[in-house]
């Protein structure tokens, strides 16, 4: 057992992260209120092309629903009830019911007006929640809705199929852009899109460096920190240049922490990972685990800004060898640019993919981060988060990683959370591995 104590201290970049987040929230509220700006509902991580429309902001249900769950259990319960009395229940996840409920109530958790969307661009997805998302905000207003197909599939890798899917996606998107231009009288700026395309891979490089830095012992930051950063530039989009600069600064600070052995948890002696989204309504359990000297190094979900990773021969996590930008021609037209964005976004993040991502990728992840244990919630509803969770646990057990399951409604819904049982299980699980709570 490692009894070393490391120095720990808060991140200096916190204030800047908060400013960026507040800026994003302000942009959303202003978009809803302003006649010059547009607010679209959609899956922000897949709508990179939106930068081509000046004043177009994207808001996604997931981060809104997660934030609602985190900020106020009381208000998020009201939201879910507001959704339920309109006919939406457990078939939709907590994120969606929180967000839609807030929309139905017409207000956010701080009492401010709910920012109504002016269009909806949802995409079909293995998780049917994503597909349904556009429906209510469209029906309520009403507003235009355009489908935005998702370039992924299940089964073995098939480059020809990918090529066809990407072309399909490119032409779907061209149609959506043309329609927005027609309906709202806005002009799409191809040059802005082309300029932004080069930025995403750079952000990914910084994010990947952060992921690799977190494989160090002690980990320089933990999951609770990462939860605050991983949406910046993905689900909560602000100016691309500003986002890039933020990730560069974050990388610099985390590298400094690694160089100086500054730990997220000063007593780190146990490393654990999660499976995908955190229980946003109960983030304090990270602090509980810290009492055992246990640091959560994240999940495939919170490391998704780093792109798809695999275990290299040297035992370190590195990028897969997939091409992320077309190499055979330069980007000159809107179509070229869209194809490039689709190629960048083509590789699905772990929880939505086939056997490699479900099984091999999670063991690669565990090995790369040198984890001792994994906590893998079994959610009753929504977002596909529970898919294969038990299968993954068995594969982790085979490589010597201890696993714990607990049940709950969904990361954005505290209904089924049983705090006393959960903490009791954590105690038993940790003690069973020879760890006792530190004084």
């Amino acid at each position, binding site marked *: 057992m490692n009894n070393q104590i490391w120095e720990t201290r808060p991140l200096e970049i916190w204030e800047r992260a908060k400013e960026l987040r507040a800026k994003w929230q302000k942009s959303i509220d202003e978009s809803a209120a302003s006649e010059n700006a547009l607010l679209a509902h959609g899956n922000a991580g897949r709508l990179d092309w939106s930068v081509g429309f000046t004043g177009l902001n994207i808001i996604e249900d997931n981060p809104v629903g997660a934030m609602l769950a985190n900020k106020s259990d009381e208000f998020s319960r009201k939201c879910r009830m507001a959704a339920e009395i309109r006919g939406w229940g457990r078939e939709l996840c907590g994120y969606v019911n929180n967000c839609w409920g807030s929309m139905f109530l017409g207000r956010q958790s701080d009492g401010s007006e709910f920012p109504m969307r002016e269009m909806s661009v949802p995409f079909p997805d293995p998780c049917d929640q994503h597909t349904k998302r556009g429906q209510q905000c469209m029906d309520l207003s009403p507003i235009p809705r355009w489908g935005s197909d998702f370039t992924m599939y299940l089964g073995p890798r098939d480059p020809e199929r990918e090529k066809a899917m990407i072309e399909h996606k490119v032409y779907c998107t061209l149609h959506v852009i043309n329609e927005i231009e027609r309906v709202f009288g806005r002009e799409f700026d191809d040059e802005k899109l082309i300029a932004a395309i080069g930025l995403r891979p750079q952000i990914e490089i910084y994010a990947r460096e952060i992921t690799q830095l977190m494989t160090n012992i002690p980990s320089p930051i933990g999951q609770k920190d990462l939860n605050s950063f991983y949406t910046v530039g993905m689900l909560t989009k602000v100016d691309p240049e500003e986002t890039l600069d933020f990730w560069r600064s974050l990388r610099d600070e985390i590298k400094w922490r690694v160089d100086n052995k500054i730990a997220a948890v000063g007593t780190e002696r146990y490393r654990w990972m999660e499976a995908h989204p955190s229980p946003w309504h109960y983030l304090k359990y990270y602090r509980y685990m810290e009492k055992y000297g246990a640091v959560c190094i994240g999940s495939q979900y919170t490391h998704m800004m780093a792109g798809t990773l695999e275990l290299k021969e040297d035992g370190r996590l590195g990028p897969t060898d997939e091409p992320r930008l077309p190499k055979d021609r330069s980007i000159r037209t809107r179509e070229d640019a869209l194809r490039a964005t689709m190629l960048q976004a083509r590789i699905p993040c772990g929880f939505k993919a086939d056997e490699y991502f479900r099984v091999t990728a999670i063991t690669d992840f565990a090995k790369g981060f040198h984890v001792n244990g994994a906590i893998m919630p*079994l959610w009753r509803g929504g977002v596909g988060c529970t898919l294969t969770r038990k299968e993954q*646990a068995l594969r982790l057990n085979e490589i010597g990683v201890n696993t714990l399951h*607990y*049940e709950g409604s969904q990361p954005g819904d505290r209904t089924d959370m049983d705090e006393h049982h959960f903490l009791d*299980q954590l*105690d038993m699980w940790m003690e*069973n591995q020879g760890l006792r709570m530190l004084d």
Partner: protein
Amino acid sequence: MITCGIDVGLENIKVLLLKDDQISARACGRSGGAGRSAAAKALWNDVLKSAELSASDVSKTVATGRGRKDVTFADFCVTEPIADAKAALRIYPKAVSVMDIGADQVRVIPLSEKNGTSQPAFNQKCSAGLGTLLRYMSMRLEMTLDDIGACAHNPAGGVTVNDGCIVFAELDALELLNQNTGREDVACAIIEAVVVRLNAILHDKTAPPKEGVVLIGGVAKNAAVVSGLKTRSGIDFIVPNHAEYGGALGAALLAAEN
């Protein structure tokens, strides 16, 4: 040397004394709800009195169970899987796994040669409170727990209750009684539902071994449950006398070791 193990469960407290590695006294009492700490202390005093001992005669006391932290006079606490594993290896030195079925929780703990335990499986929510269900149903059916334990586990006439949720199981049972179904048949249906849930926990991670599995906890005293579980799982469980004291025994053994 005299050591003491106290297992503070959701419904019952078990106190067990070991003298020179042999069980010298034991007692079981209600856990007392909000007065759990006082109830543990009172039961402990009763056991000492019956054994004609004073507190100073006890070298070390170890607490386990859900309410272990309420035993303020314990020298230290251990979580249930640790105590279960220790008890199982004492009960049957060649044990490869132990299953503990309590009022609230069910645990399956594979035993490893390396460090005693490995990868325990716990009940999830729908299987919580199986022991408590049996007690509630005994009151509802106006039968003793022993009466229920004497029932055959296969209900006559295909009478069933919900086997996914104990709340629904109890409501189903009530409805069956309202339909004039015989209470023994209702009891059998309840036992079958409990057995189905237990078998699911046994198979939570991997197929369990068929031999060398020790069964402890209060529900292990219920012959109908044990019989049904043996049939359904194919496991020839080792069930000790006084199975409900398994956790307390493990705690007392750990007290002697430390």
